[in-house]
């Protein structure tokens, strides 16, 4: 058990290390100078000497005047202290606190959408695998849903439910006329703004899981153990139960693999709805060339995906008894 998780943790640590290093490398080795562009944006009207002074000032501020290896060490040192620098676009607020105020919104969308679409999709898929009529509906709908770009479904939902039917608001995390307080009115407003972005994330995910589960169940029902059980006269309910359990395992692995895509989907969905999460922040940081904020958001996403992956690993061990046996067997 310890060896298995040790190995996993090693991979995750390596991944984080590499990702963070790439994150550090990109602005330094990409064409163009972030500081120059920053100065040319903020310091217009300055004399050449003035803008030169500004360049020196920013280089000092961001620690760009040190040798490159020292910059790298400093980067890790401040990273481990939770210091991701300051946001240029939000006039010097610490990046960490800017991100922390956006993270709850993103998580409130992502966690329910991912878990529910996984659960509902698997349930529908398992049903479709044994009912021809349902299958004929689930399969085409599923393919259309998986092929839909996240932001387009978001746009269409916003248009239908926000513009034509006028049921749900289509912009913001809560009504602009309200202050964040702990009242029912505010919570209601939060909820009604949450419904559409959640629904679009949920629906796109649904199709893939349903198709995956359907195929897997059909495959499992053809497997030798299913045939053997049937031959023994086991009730088909029991056979299906076993098939479902076996089909579940690849779906759990798939959950981990799909996380990166879903996170990206959440980012663009937030942009469509101007939802105050990481996606909107990301767009703002790109448009304003706020590279510290951009780096910070990236690191947060990496960290989140790694943690989620690790949770899925643990879930896998809990669900699949064979891994536990194999692991305890592996320990001397």
């Amino acid at each position, binding site marked *: 058990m310890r060896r*298995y998780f040790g190995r996993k943790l090693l*991979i995750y640590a*390596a*991944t984080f290390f*590499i990702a963070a290093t*790439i994150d550090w490398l*990109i602005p330094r080795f*990409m*064409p*163009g100078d972030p500081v120059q562009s920053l100065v040319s944006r903020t310091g217009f009207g300055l004399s050449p000497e003035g803008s030169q002074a500004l360049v020196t000032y920013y280089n000092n501020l961001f620690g760009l005047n040190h040798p490159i290896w020292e910059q790298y060490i400093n980067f890790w040192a401040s990273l481990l202290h939770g210091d991701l620098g300051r946001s240029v676009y939000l006039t010097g607020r610490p990046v960490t606190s800017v991100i922390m105020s956006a993270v709850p919104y993103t998580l409130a969308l992502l966690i329910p959408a991912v878990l529910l679409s996984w659960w509902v999709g698997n349930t529908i898929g398992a049903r479709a695998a044994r009912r021809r009529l349902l299958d004929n509906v689930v399969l085409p709908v599923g*393919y*259309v849903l998986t*092929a*839909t*770009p*996240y*932001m*387009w*479904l978001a*746009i*269409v939902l916003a*248009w239908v439910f*926000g*513009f034509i039917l006028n049921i749900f608001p289509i912009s913001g995390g809560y009504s602009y006329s309200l202050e964040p307080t702990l009242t029912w009115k505010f919570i209601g407003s939060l909820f009604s703004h949450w419904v559409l972005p959640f629904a679009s994330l949920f629906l796109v*995910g649904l199709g*893939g*899981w349903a*198709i995956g589960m359907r*195929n897997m169940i059909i*495959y*499992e029902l053809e*497997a030798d153990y299913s045939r053997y059980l049937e031959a023994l006269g086991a009730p088909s309910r029991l056979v299906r139960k076993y098939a479902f359990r076996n089909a579940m*395992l*690849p*779906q759990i692995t*798939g959950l981990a*693999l*799909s*996380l*990166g*895509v879903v*996170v*990206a*989907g959440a*980012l*663009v969905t937030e*942009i469509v709805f101007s939802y105050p999460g990481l996606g909107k922040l990301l*767009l703002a940081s*790109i448009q304003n060339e706020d*590279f510290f904020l951009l*780096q910070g958001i*990236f690191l947060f*996403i*990496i960290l989140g*995906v*790694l943690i989620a*992956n690790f949770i899925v690993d643990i879930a896998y061990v809990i669900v*699949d008894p*064979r*891994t536990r046996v194999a692991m305890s067997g592996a320990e001397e």
Partner: protein
Amino acid sequence: MTTRAPSAGAQTPDVVQGPQGVPTVPGAVPVGGRPDPRPMSRRGEILYFALRTKKVIIGLTIIAVFLVLALIGPIIRPGDPDALIGPLGASPSADWWFGTTSFGQDIFAQFVYSLGSTFLVGALGGGIAAIIGMTVGFVAGYRGGWIDEVLNMITNVVLVIPTLALLLVAAAYLSARGVVVEALFIGFTSWPWAARAIRAQTFSLRSREFVNLARMSGVKGLRIVFGEIAPNMSSYLFLTFILLFGGAILIAATLDFIGLGPTSGSSLGLMMYDAVAWSALQLGLWWWFIPPGVAITAIVGALYITNVGLDEVFNPKLRNT
């Protein structure tokens, strides 16, 4: 027939997942794994069944329609697709088939020009990803040992990194980007699941008799991979490429939508970005944002359906289900 025997596969789960959790091709290696002595007749057989599989026909027809549109569109509507030539925000009519934007741009012209770049990104991005995935998968699966370990590690790392976030950061720093650069980015980040799948397939073929025979008769590693192993999973490789193609289109749409797509030219994602940025939603200009999304969904959906249909063609066991 398969590598998907239920096994305690926690460390290397051997089920292959495509993008967004769509499990890919279940039965990949042809039954028996023997090189077919009559390649022509096999090709004829595939064509025979492909033209009689409903899914393949539907999928290919949809793709062909859009491809033709992408090719002849610029001939129907020559000139700059972004030119301000029409009335402002007009709904679809005989003159303006897809209506106009709130600036008076012809949406049909933008649409057909964008289709071209969509196919380009898909083919190029998917192609690059397929080549990297194949190389990594073949080498890791055939060589094994420490090379396999190292490649596996790299694959796992790239697999876990949310590559889209990585793309965002990288693309944000490049001030001038073309469709080709975008396709390169996508190709270099979307190969891991393909590499894993191909590695598993190679692994299972590696110890078959015909490969052993080739090895005993002194054939070198590379020739075995390309002469013996690859042809026996050619259908699988093709299906992988189709999925990567569709995935690349979706990733490109996402990138474009955040404003990190090509800085010049048009694309379907960029059209949606413009529509949202210029309040097409609030103004009710549905003809601005519906066509690009429909096109992406239709093309990617058609690719997936073709993929499933072709799987049935390549795999006789699946044909009657």
